[in-house]
């Protein structure tokens, strides 16, 4: 059995919404029958837009949320039935810097959590020193966490997840809010952990990171896995099309739908550019070089101002667009 | 004026959206008064009322205590609201935005305080008005001059609120300080007993606190049927405090604010 086995895992939230005496019952399907497994020594990426179900999936795996149906097994223990055992067999890092006690030092935080994970005190002492050195906090171990920078807090949270040396590790956005140097450090550590044989599940918004680190990626949208496989294989599926990125101003809302009327165009997605002043059209198209002049003519007729046109290598974003017709950043 | 109105409306909306908090402040005077009466009955037995009258000069125990309770609660609301409003803005991260706006700091603080005039007025009229109507209906009209004494007593309290606003910018955690200050004020100003019960040197401290005069004036007006004119001495002192406290409070606030802009305190929380 693989360290992580997920079978038809689902979660539906029941809510009551509306005015005081007119509340309406509503069911929200956050995760809809997902299946995957993670063997030893693999980094498994979970990629998807906000609200796709990534965090709900992670929280079910670490027992913070009880599944509505289906099950998952961590080192053979069921998340639905053996919650205590699951917690003992997991190392978890959840998003954000607000997972630490600000009035304790870095070392004291790790000592506290080491006790909660039942680590032998002599072992814990050495382990803590080792981890603080690993994440570059050994010289600040006696500083209160409230005086740490955001990056330092995230690195300490990361170290906390490694305390019990669990075979299965869950990292929820481990490099969010980190500077490039710290991100690089965390990624190197994750690669080392993979080489040591840990099964790692990683959620991220960062496509480049998912592409770089993951052995396999599951792309989640609206609670379902829409694509699963090694990044190279997923991108290969999209490679049969060309991907053209057009940066422009004054794009009408109907432009993506209108472009799809071109028979050669398979998918179109639109997102704001980084500057926010222009928008990016990402067009998946057969025989791109032949079709491009007609696309550009169409856009000019619609009074768009084109600033840049690029043929690009497909990324995981394009895999997502190909599967869902929307951008990951929507 | 526009800014003042905006700040006033924002503060009022907060109280409307969190009616639970306001409900607690309405209930607390009754609850504390009831506790005092219960304890008094327990320790004093059948002669409790007689012992009370010997010390206070009145057998109107409920009115005596509820007036003190009401002033205590209104003071608490004012001091807490102005100080914690700043703290709430700090935590939400909006303090910097407020201070970046071209609005005079005084307008900001006064706007916050004006909301409390409305809130404390409602509080007072409900608590004292209802109690007097039920227990001493013949004195119901005295609630009006008593209310005027309260309003005059609120002005120096806003000054204390400004002082707290400054402490919050510097020290960040206002709640425990506010609790202690409110307790100290309640103890020194004769909330549930005459200040003459306190040692002389403590009474000197009571003399600089506005609630001392407000509580005493209210008791004389409602229980002893005196008028504001009879109490001209207390009114005069309240007027002096109404001038001194806001000036001092605002001066301290501005000083701390100027220092904060040097040390970068606004963005810390």
């Amino acid at each position, binding site marked *: 059995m693989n360290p992580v086995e997920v079978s038809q895992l689902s979660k539906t939230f029941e809510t009551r919404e509306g005015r005081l005496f007119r509340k309406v019952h509503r069911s929200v399907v956050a995760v809809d029958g997902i299946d995957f497994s993670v063997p030893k020594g693999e980094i498994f990426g979970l990629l998807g837009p906000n609200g796709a179900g990534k965090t709900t999936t992670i929280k079910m795996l670490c027992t913070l949320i*009880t599944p509505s149906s289906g099950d998952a097994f961590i080192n053979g223990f069921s998340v639905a039935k053996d919650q205590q055992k699951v917690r003992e067999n997991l190392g978890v890092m959840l998003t954000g810097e607000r997972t630490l006690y600000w009035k304790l030092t870095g070392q004291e935080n790790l000592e506290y959590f080491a006790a909660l994970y039942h680590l032998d005190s002599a072992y814990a002492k050495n382990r803590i020193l080792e981890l603080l050195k690993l994440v570059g906090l050994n010289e600040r171990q006696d500083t209160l966490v409230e005086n740490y920078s955001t990056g330092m807090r995230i690195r300490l949270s990361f170290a906390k997840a490694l305390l019990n040396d669990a075979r299965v590790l869950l990292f929820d956005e481990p490099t969010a809010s980190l500077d490039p140097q710290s991100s690089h450090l965390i990624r190197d550590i994750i690669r080392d952990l993979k080489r040591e044989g840990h099964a790692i599940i990683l959620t991220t918004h960062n496509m480049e990171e998912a592409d770089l680190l993951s052995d396999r990626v599951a792309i989640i949208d609206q609670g379902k896995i829409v694509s699963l496989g090694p990044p190279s294989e997923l991108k290969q599926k999209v490679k049969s099309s060309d991907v053209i990125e057009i940066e422009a101003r004054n794009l009408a809302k109907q432009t993506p739908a209108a472009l799809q009327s071109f028979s050669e165009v398979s998918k179109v997605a639109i997102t704001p550019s980084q500057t926010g002043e222009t928008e990016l059209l990402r067009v998946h198209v057969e025989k791109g070089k032949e079709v491009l002049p007609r696309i550009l003519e169409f856009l000019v007729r619609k009074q768009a101002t084109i600033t840049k046109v690029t043929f690009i290598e497909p990324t995981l974003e394009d895999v997502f667009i190909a599967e869902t017709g929307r951008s990951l950043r929507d | 004026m526009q800014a003042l109105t905006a700040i006033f409306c924002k503060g009022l909306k907060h109280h409307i959206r969190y009616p639970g908090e306001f409900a607690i402040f309405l209930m607390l005077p009754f609850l504390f008064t009831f506790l005092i009466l219960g304890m008094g009955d327990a320790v004093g037995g059948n002669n409790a009322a007689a012992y009370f009258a010997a010390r206070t000069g009145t057998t109107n125990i409920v009115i005596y205590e509820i007036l003190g309770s009401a002033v205590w609660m209104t003071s608490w609301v004012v001091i807490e609201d102005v100080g914690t409003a700043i703290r709430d803005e700090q935590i939400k991260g909006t303090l910097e935005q407020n201070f970046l706006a071209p609005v005079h700091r005084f307008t900001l603080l006064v706007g916050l305080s004006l909301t409390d005039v409305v809130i404390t007025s409602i509080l007072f009229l409900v608590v004292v008005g209802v109690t007097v109507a039920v227990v001493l209906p013949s004195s119901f009209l005295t609630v009006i001059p008593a209310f005027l004494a309260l309003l005059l007593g609120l002005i120096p309290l806003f000054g204390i609120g400004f002082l707290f606003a400054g402490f919050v910018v510097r020290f960040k955690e206002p709640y425990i300080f506010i609790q202690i200050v409110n307790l100290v004020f309640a103890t020194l100003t004769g909330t549930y007993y005459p200040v003459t019960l306190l040692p002389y040197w403590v009474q000197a401290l009571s003399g600089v606190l506005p609630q001392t005069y407000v509580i005493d004036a209210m008791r004389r007006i409602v229980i002893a049927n005196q008028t504001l004119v009879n109490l001209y001495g207390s009114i005069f002192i309240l007027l002096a405090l109404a001038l001194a406290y806001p000036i001092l409070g605002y001066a301290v606030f501005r000083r701390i604010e100027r220092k904060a802009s040097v040390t970068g305190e606004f963005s810390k929380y």
Partner: protein
Amino acid sequence: MNSRNISYPSRLIEEFRASFLKDIRSYFRYPAWVIGEFLSTPLWFFFFALGVTLFVPVVSVAARGTASTGISYFFFGFIFIVLFSTSVWGVGQSVRNEQESGTLEQFFLAPANRATLILGRWARIFLTDSLIISYTTVLLYLIGGTAVAILNPTLFILSVGLYELSLIGFGLFMAGLTIRIKAYNSIGNAIFFGYMIFTGALFPITVLPQPVRYFSMLLPFTYLNDLMRHAALGTTMILPENLEYTVAILASVAMLIFGFVAFNKIEQDARVKGSIATS
């Protein structure tokens, strides 16, 4: 190695120790709160005590010590309130604080026993409350000339033990309530004031109207307060002696069990709803 060789009792002790240490360190690193709590708690007592002195006979300073029964009665009420606030504001509020600061999730991720973690917190609060009560007792003697005596120390210690057991149970329930109901302040206040009025903490329940008294007699803390006060001051018990001992013991055990069960149930419900650590 790491955890495999640690026995279950050792685990519980380590969890308790870690939780207690974390709480003590965090508490003393907020000096404003420490000073504030040590100042404000006795101040509440003296503030209300002054109000209560209006209802006792006027006595000379020399005779003050002999007129102390009324103040002693109230002083034990103060002790009850300080101890009871451990559950409501100590344990319950601190869980709410962890929710808001984001550390509550870590609490639930760990394979640690929930009760020992909460007990660790309770132990810190019990320690600081004991210090506050002790020095308020000294102040009462120095300022008010009132010496607080305990008539039956053995029974008093036993009744304190029963009281603390029920507080642990009630604290677990309040911790669960915090997880379930985010608007904790209003509920906490209601429970706290209900305790002050209906359980004979500050005045005997005989002060209350008869129908309300029946309600008071349904509350377990009424008997626990009554037993402690009887042990300290020799006051008349509400029930016949042996019956009151029985009721107090059963009430403590029942509250302890209730607290555990309620907390577990609320935790499981919160996992189903996905709201276990949301603020």
